[in-house]
């Protein structure tokens, strides 16, 4: 099957184009845009881990290593498209226009962190695995119903493919030719469970055959490959040709979450060793150098801007209005029914803990 679903690559590990035909697609502007977003995600992510270690936020879900997959896909969306991320895709949300302060707040156990910025259709991360796939199908069907050209993208991992909702969501989308992109980040693990124990199929892309839709397998560490594949899938969707399943093969450099200890189930040192070679940001740097687009001054300045942005976001997050117990009662229904109303009065009229 790996032959039938070859790993699409545009920029190889050494930062070279896999075919000259790609040359015209590589503009300095695009390269810089990709670099900017990946570095921004990396900085946000590193800070997230640090904040957790320092006890300034709760358990955090790092995505280090998956920046190319998340940025490359997110930048393929148009402003009115719909994004359905998982708990690991706050990187993609950030790249699409999610609010950094809120994206930190979420990890501090604040519901305010799940509230999307009004300019973007970013649905809060689905915690129950694979449940967002049917949502993406439905949101996309609604766009068709309204006669727009907007589309949706659903993010999910390799483990998610074992859930019924993965299957039901894609099947329904395929039947109604819904304009949706099913974007899988295959990082080889569902917490500790390796993909060989998750499925008997050699690839995830081949699962598209079950739905009579195209399946594409790309090198998820190659931002150009990801961006191209996802853009093509969105084009198909907007043309009314239905959903596409994309498998982006990536490496999760760190633990599943800051509460996870990867050394229990994999050789973490070996993973660390591969980093220099496969890190998507380093690969992009190599490409820049190979194409004489490496602009050190711009990089320094950009990185500084980002570091400042992140510091400011953390500060704002920590200064955010304190959590108010009232919010748990005020948004269950448009109007609180009497049990909720009475319970609220009882609690807030009370000493509490």
């Amino acid at each position, binding site marked *: 099957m790996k032959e039938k679903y070859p790993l699409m690559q545009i920029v190889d590990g050494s930062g070279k184009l896999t075919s000259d035909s790609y040359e015209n697609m590589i503009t300095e502007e695009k390269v810089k845009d990709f670099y900017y977003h990946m570095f921004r995600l990396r900085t946000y992510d590193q800070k997230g881990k640090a904040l957790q270690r320092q006890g300034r936020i709760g358990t955090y879900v790092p995505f280090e290593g998956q920046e190319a997959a998340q940025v490359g896909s997110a930048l393929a969306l148009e402003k009115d498209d719909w994004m359905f991320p998982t708990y690991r895709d706050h990187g993609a949300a950030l790249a699409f226009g999610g609010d950094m302060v809120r994206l930190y707040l979420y990890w501090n156990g604040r519901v305010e962190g799940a509230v999307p910025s009004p300019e973007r259709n970013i649905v809060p991360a689905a915690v129950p695995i694979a449940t967002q796939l049917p949502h993406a199908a*439905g949101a996309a069907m609604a766009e068709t119903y309204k006669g727009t050209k907007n589309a949706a993208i659903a993010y999910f991992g390799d483990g998610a493919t074992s859930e019924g909702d993965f299957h039901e969501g894609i099947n329904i989308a395929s039947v109604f030719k819904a304009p949706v992109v099913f974007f899988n980040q295959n990082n080889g693990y569902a917490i500790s469970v390796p993909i060989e124990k998750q499925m008997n199929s050699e690839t995830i892309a081949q699962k598209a055959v079950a739905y009579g839709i195209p399946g594409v397998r790309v090198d998820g560490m190659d931002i150009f490959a990801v961006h191209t594949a996802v853009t093509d899938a969105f084009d198909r969707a907007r043309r009314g040709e239905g959903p596409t399943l994309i498998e982006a093969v990536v490496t999760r450099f760190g633990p599943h979450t800051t509460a996870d200890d990867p050394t229990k189930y994999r050789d973490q040192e070996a993973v660390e060793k591969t980093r220099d070679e496969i890190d998507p940001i380093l690969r992009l740097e190599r490409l820049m150098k190979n194409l004489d687009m490496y602009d050190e001054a711009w990089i320094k300045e950009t990185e500084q801007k980002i570091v400042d942005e992140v510091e400011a976001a953390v500060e704002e997050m920590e200064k955010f209005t304190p959590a108010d117990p009232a919010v748990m009662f005020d948004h269950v*229904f448009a109007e609180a029914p*009497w049990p909720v109303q009475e319970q609220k009065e009882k609690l807030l009229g009370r000493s509490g803990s």
Partner: protein
Amino acid sequence: MVLVNDSKQAEAGQQVQTMNLIQAITDGMRTMLAEDDRVLVLGEDVGVNGGVFRATEGLLDEFGEHRVIDTPLSEAGFTGAAVGMALNGLKPIVEIQFLGFVYPAYEQIATHVTRMRSRTLSHFTLPMVIRAPFGAGVGAPEIHSDSIEALFTHMPGIKVVCPSTAYDAKGLLTAAVEDPDPVLFLEPMRLYRGKREDVPTEKYTVPIGKGKRIREGEDVSVFAWGAMVPVAEKAAEEMAKENISCDVIDLRTLYPLDKDIISDSVQKTGRAVIVHEAQETGGVSSEVTSVINDTSFLYLKAPIQRVTGFDVPVPFFAIEHDYLPNPNRVKDAIKEAVNF
């Protein structure tokens, strides 16, 4: 302009048509589909076939396949898709073919349908209705007869309604479609083709959260909903011959319960009998009992009586009538309350 009318039947001067309960449900859907093009109907066999009970008969022809959608056999999938549609401005009415087949959609309902508003502080809301026929007594196969309203009244974020008359069926359905939040609309199969009554052809709503007194009495309060309402009525009629007068209340909404009608009635009679066909342990009767305990403790003259299904899976239909509460069991409970 919506006419709110909570009387038992249509009012003088209204355009009416005689309908049974399922026809009133169809008429309610038709009314809302015609009024608001954000309203869609989707589910298994709801289109070409008009539904296995014919609840959506004629709607496909009238509104087309973009409004009345035959879905794949995929309760989690199409309930989840409805979540996506509602997120994106539509108002889906989802039909679950039988309530006993809602289980595969349970995760979608428990983690998304009911939580989208609270987890986004009302940024995203899900105005959607989930319709499902339920209950035993029609000789259906296993699982088809489950009565599991209590699995939803304990789930914050969804309202649960259950009409027992054609008039309430249309009025509660239109109210459910207009409600800004998810509503589970339970349809007592056994009453689908029962009593016919006048139903206004225009739109009207019956308020969610309000029970209805269907018989005035002094000695004991009898609470029921869905297919148990006629059973309670029958028992009350027969008790009247024995000079015991029952205050019979059709709760109609199971979440939120109509606390006032419950406490008013019990504070008047001092006795309560609760009738439902779901299994006894953990049934909605326990919650009604708690409401009575909280509101009317000092008025109680006898223990609250429960007449319910048993703590067993709804049996195969050869003995389903032994499982179901019947007027005799209700009368025995009434007597126990009165003679305590």
